[in-house]
């Protein structure tokens, strides 16, 4: 399959596919970070994670409409406002869901699976009713359009660079929050042993709610970024949820670094193979690879070595 291309063409293809892999990587990281907190840290299987992301995408869509309607002069900056609104909307919905549903199910993982799956169906229908079944897209502001020409053949889209910067920024922020702040210590202790965390003076109910809200909020930001590379429909979240779980499980459930490493591996493998093979073949090979690695290392790529 490589025979049809010259060496320099091949190099360029690898570079460009590598870069589009990086964009996919960024979206995976944003999606998976939220899930790494909710599933990896809290142990809640949230099947509605994709729908929280889509909520962020719809909020971005609404914000862009409001900006182009009422303040076209500021249209270039709408994205930053949209991201904050997406975070707040998805986070608030997440906290509501935690209060109404999840907190009763912490000891029943299988019931959580069903309950959140039901929630995802409800949300999908809600989006269909409010926004219609047709997919919507947003107009990108001018400064995000176009691409940077690096060599004759290689060019890199600006919105891709923006998504990547966003993913890196949010990863750093989350890592600092989890491992450098007092709040992070509280989250990690609640996750390890909820009754004991209460008995050292931590308000576990509040920590749980904020943690779940944070995870959902990050999904909202991911959805916001998602509007730049794809259009948004009621069921768009479903396409990504399996990939996202795959990333988190492959990375090792409790490790943020593992999540990032596994997002990188999966997205690069997928993107590079997609160019030479068909999309579904690329997916099959990626899945086989992940299954094989997980057979050798059931705990995922990265795991903590502690006496149990």
């Amino acid at each position, binding site marked *: 399959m490589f025979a049809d291309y010259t060496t320099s063409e091949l190099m360029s293809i690898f570079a460009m596919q590598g870069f589009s892999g990086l964009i996919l990587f960024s979206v995976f990281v944003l999606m998976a970070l939220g899930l790494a907190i909710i599933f990896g840290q809290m142990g809640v299987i949230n099947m509605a994670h994709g729908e929280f992301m889509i909520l962020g995408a719809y909020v971005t869509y609404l914000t862009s409409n409001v900006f182009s309607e009422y303040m076209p002069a500021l249209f270039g900056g709408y994205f930053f406002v949209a991201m904050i609104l997406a975070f707040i909307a998805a986070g608030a919905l997440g906290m509501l869901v935690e209060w109404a549903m999840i907190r009763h199910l912490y000891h029943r993982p299988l019931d959580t699976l069903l309950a959140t799956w039901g929630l995802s169906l409800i949300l999908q229908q809600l989006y269909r009713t409010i926004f219609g079944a047709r997919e919507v897209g947003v107009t990108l502001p001018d400064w995000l359009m176009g691409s940077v020409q690096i060599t004759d053949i290689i060019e890199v889209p600006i919105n891709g660079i923006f998504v990547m910067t966003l993913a890196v920024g949010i990863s750093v922020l989350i890592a600092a929050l989890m491992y450098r702040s*007092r709040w992070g*210590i*509280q989250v*990690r*202790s609640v996750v*390890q*042993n909820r*009754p*004991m*965390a*209460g*008995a*050292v*003076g*931590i*308000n*576990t*109910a509040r920590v749980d709610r904020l943690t779940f809200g944070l995870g959902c909020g990050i999904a909202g930001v991911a959805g916001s970024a998602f509007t730049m590379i794809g259009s948004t429909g009621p069921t768009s979240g479903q396409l990504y949820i399996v990939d996202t779980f795959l990333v988190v499980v492959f990375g090792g459930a*409790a490790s943020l670094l593992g999540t990032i490493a596994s997002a990188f591996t999966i997205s690069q493998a997928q993107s590079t193979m997609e160019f030479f093979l068909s999309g579904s073949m690329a997916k099959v090979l990626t899945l086989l690879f992940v299954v094989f690695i997980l057979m050798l290392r059931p705990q995922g790529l990265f795991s*903590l070595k*502690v*006496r*149990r």
Partner: protein
Amino acid sequence: MLNVSDYRVSYGQSNIISGMNFSVAPNEIVAVMGRNGMGKTTLMKSLMGVIPSESGSVTLDGTEVSGMKSYQRVESGFGFVPQGRMIFSSMTVKENIETGLTTTNSRHVPRDLYDMFPVLLEMRNRRGGNLSGGQQQQLAIARALASNPKMLLLDEPTEGIQPSIIRDMARTLKEIRDQRGLSIVVSEQVLSFALDIADRILVIEKGEIVHEELRSNVDEAKVASYLSV
């Protein structure tokens, strides 16, 4: 200081603690003794709010705590060292102690905790799970002390710990009591440890106090007879 009256705890239909009454004076160390399954751990856990009580009242310094959540009880002055230590094994020693600082306003581990347990200073960046049993016990005590409790509850602190360290622990606990002026309730099966540390000994059987004695005039043989099967 601590006042427990007409206290009942049950798991569903089975009554574990039935109408218990006792009190602990300021600066006093009370050992609760009894064989397995007599309700020691249940008593400790329910005093800490980890499991709910059915009826009765628990007051600490006059504040009724029986309806409070665990973290509120810590705020009002309880500290808890559970059976099996239950330290957060994937977090470092320093982070483990910091979890205990939640109800206080300080951000840094107070110096005197490290002075009391120098081994924890040495190992502060190791993961808690990689410590030995005795070190984990010290960590669990330091974590409980970080919230500046008035009333420290220890559930079988000697479980799985070598005899020489048990003697050290009795000395340390008494030092802590003298330095900080707190009261301690410790549940125990090891009579020698209880005699080492306690001012008063309570023996419970089937959730009721069947025997109570001051350390100064304790009848060792009698207490031992309650503990033997």
